[in-house]
């Protein structure tokens, strides 16, 4: 019961946040709506017993990505964040169609074959009891750390490399050329 | 080059020392210099020694007052020193004094102010009125609790509120009052002496004149009585 209520609330918030994020003219409002979406998603992760991922979601998305977005808006748009342009592009109709069609195609089988869904080999309707016991009793964080440092250590290192490269690349791209800075300081 | 932060630690030592010592500064002289407000209910306004908490000294000045020489419950206007000469009104830098002269029924100037208002919101406690007053009639009061609720009438201090006795003056500014009284007595004495001298001279001159007149009268009966009475100023 409580899980269902929570799920519906959280998914409503997530959908609402995502919709607002893509539709608001004001970019700052858009960012805050996006952060709402991230938060709701993190709640859903908790419901799925992936609490470590939920914490990381909050830390990375809300704490870092949101701030980055805000900074970019402050640096590029006017500080009010108003996006005064026309909302859509020329091909907005096709875009909308595509945006509706893709999820429809994804959802359709689930809706149509409701009866046969239970027969699908992967889907376990009742959740995995083994996991439920495991996650609440054992330390998933510890297990996760073990797996990361043993089985997935190479991808982890590659990821670290990627992050470093991204950091350097971002700084290199965003760094203002010296000429500009000095040119600004001496107008006329 | 010292480690980063050593200067800050030094400063923290200073502040900690002040923090601790403020609790041991019983006489509130070194590390706790705040003077708490001397509440009005604690002591009457004119009892300065009782208000030792204040920094009010025997020279403090805050707002002018008019002096009278009356004692006790005598009518202060009977002995008011002010003669409504209006010098202070003219000299007051912020022009906060307003004086009107008093005339008796015959329209004769009786050398007293009928109105003497000082606007407390304009006065800047500069003491120029005291210095220019030739009659020692206006001096500075050290009363500091002058706030009131009335924006219009309350800020305009009237003559009767300004009038204070010389005794009060002696209480709040003893040295200055004594000095002023001594000087007034001296000047009075000098003046009297001068007056006496002048009177004597006048008398003498009159006698001389009389003598001369008598002499002249013997020779010539016509005389000009005004001419020889010029007295030294």
């Amino acid at each position, binding site marked *: 019961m409580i899980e269902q209520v929570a799920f519906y609330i959280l998914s409503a918030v997530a959908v609402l946040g995502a919709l607002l994020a893509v539709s608001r003219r004001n970019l700052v409002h858009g960012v805050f709506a996006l952060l709402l979406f991230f938060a709701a998603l993190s709640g859903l992760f908790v419901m799925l017993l992936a609490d470590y991922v939920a914490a990381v979601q909050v830390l990375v998305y809300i704490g870092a990505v949101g701030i980055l977005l805000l900074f970019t808006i402050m640096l590029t748009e006017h500080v009010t964040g108003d996006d005064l342009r026309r909302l859509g592009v020329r091909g907005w109709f096709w875009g909308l169609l595509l945006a509706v069609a893709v999820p429809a195609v994804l959802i359709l089988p689930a809706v149509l074959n409701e009866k046969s869904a239970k027969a699908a080999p992967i889907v376990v309707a009742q959740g995995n009891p083994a996991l439920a016991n495991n996650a609440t009793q054992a330390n998933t964080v510890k297990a996760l750390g073990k797996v990361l440092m043993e089985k997935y250590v190479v991808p982890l290192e590659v990821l670290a490399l990627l992050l470093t490269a991204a950091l350097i690349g971002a700084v290199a791209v965003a760094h203002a050329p010296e000429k500009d800075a000095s040119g600004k300081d001496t107008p006329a | 080059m010292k480690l980063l*932060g050593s200067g800050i630690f030094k*400063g923290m030592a200073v502040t900690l020392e002040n923090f601790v010592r403020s609790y041991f500064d019983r006489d509130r002289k070194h590390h706790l210099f705040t003077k708490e407000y001397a509440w009005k209910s604690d002591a009457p306004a004119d009892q300065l020694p009782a208000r030792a908490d204040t920094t009010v000294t025997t020279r403090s000045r805050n707002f002018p007052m008019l002096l009278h020489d009356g004692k006790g419950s005598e009518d202060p206007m009977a002995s008011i020193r002010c003669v409504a000469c209006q010098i202070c009104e003219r000299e007051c830098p912020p022009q906060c004094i307003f004086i009107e002269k008093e005339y008796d029924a015959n329209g004769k100037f009786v050398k007293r102010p009928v109105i003497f208002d000082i606007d407390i919101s304009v006065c800047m*406690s500069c003491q120029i009125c005291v210095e220019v007053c030739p009659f020692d009639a206006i001096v500075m009061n050290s009363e500091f609790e002058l706030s009131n609720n009335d924006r219009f009438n309350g800020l305009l201090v009237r003559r009767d509120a300004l009038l204070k006795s010389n005794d009060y003056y002696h209480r709040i500014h003893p040295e200055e009052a004594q000095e002023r009284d001594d000087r007034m007595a001296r000047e009075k004495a000098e003046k009297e002496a001068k007056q006496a001298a002048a009177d004597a001279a006048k008398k003498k001159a009159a006698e001389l004149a009389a003598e001369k007149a008598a002499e002249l009268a013997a020779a010539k009966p016509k005389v000009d009585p005004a001419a020889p009475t010029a007295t030294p100023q």
Partner: protein
Amino acid sequence: MSTAAPIAAPPYKLVRHDEAEAGLLEVSMGPHHPSTHGVFRMDVKLDGETVVRLKPVFGYLHRNHEKLAEGMSYLSSMPFTDRLDYFNSMANNWAYALAAEKLVDVPVPERAQYLRVIMAELTRLVNHTSLVGFFLNDLGALGTPLLYAFRERERILDLFEQASGARMMCNYFRFGGLRCDVPAGWLDRTRALVGGFPKFLDEFEKLLCENEIILARTQHVGVLSGAQAINAGITGPMLRASGVNYDLRKVDAYGIYDRFSFRVPLGAAGDCYDRFMIRMLEMRESLKILEQALRDIPEGPVMGNAPRVFKPAAAEVYGRVESPKGELGFYLIADGTTKPYRYRVRPPSLINLTVLEDLCVGHSIADAVVILGSIDIVLGEVDR
């Protein structure tokens, strides 16, 4: 950016919306702003947090001081001089008395001369301690140095009140001397204060002079070169912080300053730290002067034979003193009446303020506040 630029500029202003200006944030700091030392406004254009342009706007506290003084007798404007730079009323009094005494040749008695020096140097202590406090307040120290400074200032103000009757608006100097002699025991109390003051300065130096944050915030910030300072007419500690040896107490030796031995501290870099340190060091020199004056002060009258009605013959004079903020001058033209024909003040604060933009451009907005604090302005004197 140099001081020569405004001369060549046309009398009107071209409004240009070029792209470099578009991204700038215009902030109006003041007149109600915690750090502008009164009602003063800085129109700042910021690129991020860097000051690109800064326009000082003042006049909010204009009280028509000069014109008022031309409408009243010479003596009556004495209390108004207190209100010019309300931190150092005694120094202002002296400058005005000095000018007026040139109009009418009034000898100042010996004791009054000494007391004037004592008062002026105490004023310097008051000004410099509170300046350092306010400066640190601008730097963001939550009032602690300010309140330590005020602790000492209170003691000096107590002395002022005992002598003159008022704590800040002293109105103590008169043409030809002082209004009254100091009360009995005052000199001893002053000696005690002067004796205890170095302890406070030590404490202050321990608290401030090695603090890394203060060093980092003030060094190499708002650098004023000696040449620029001279060009702009800067005087006082600010000029000396730029390394120019110019102290009216040495140059003019007005009063009896030639009888005392003291040194003039000079800065080298001309940045905010130098301006702050020069004031700290000047306090020590002031204490030296005070010690000598308190040692040598003779007995005697404090008021010369000034005429009761001050009515000078037509003349033109300029009297100046080294006020704690710089050269404070009074220029008087007498026309033979009891009122001055022209009365003009040379306020050090205003003239020191003229270099504000040159000092601030290129620094961050936080530095602009610090630079303003290091200039040491009092709006009463700037606006008059």
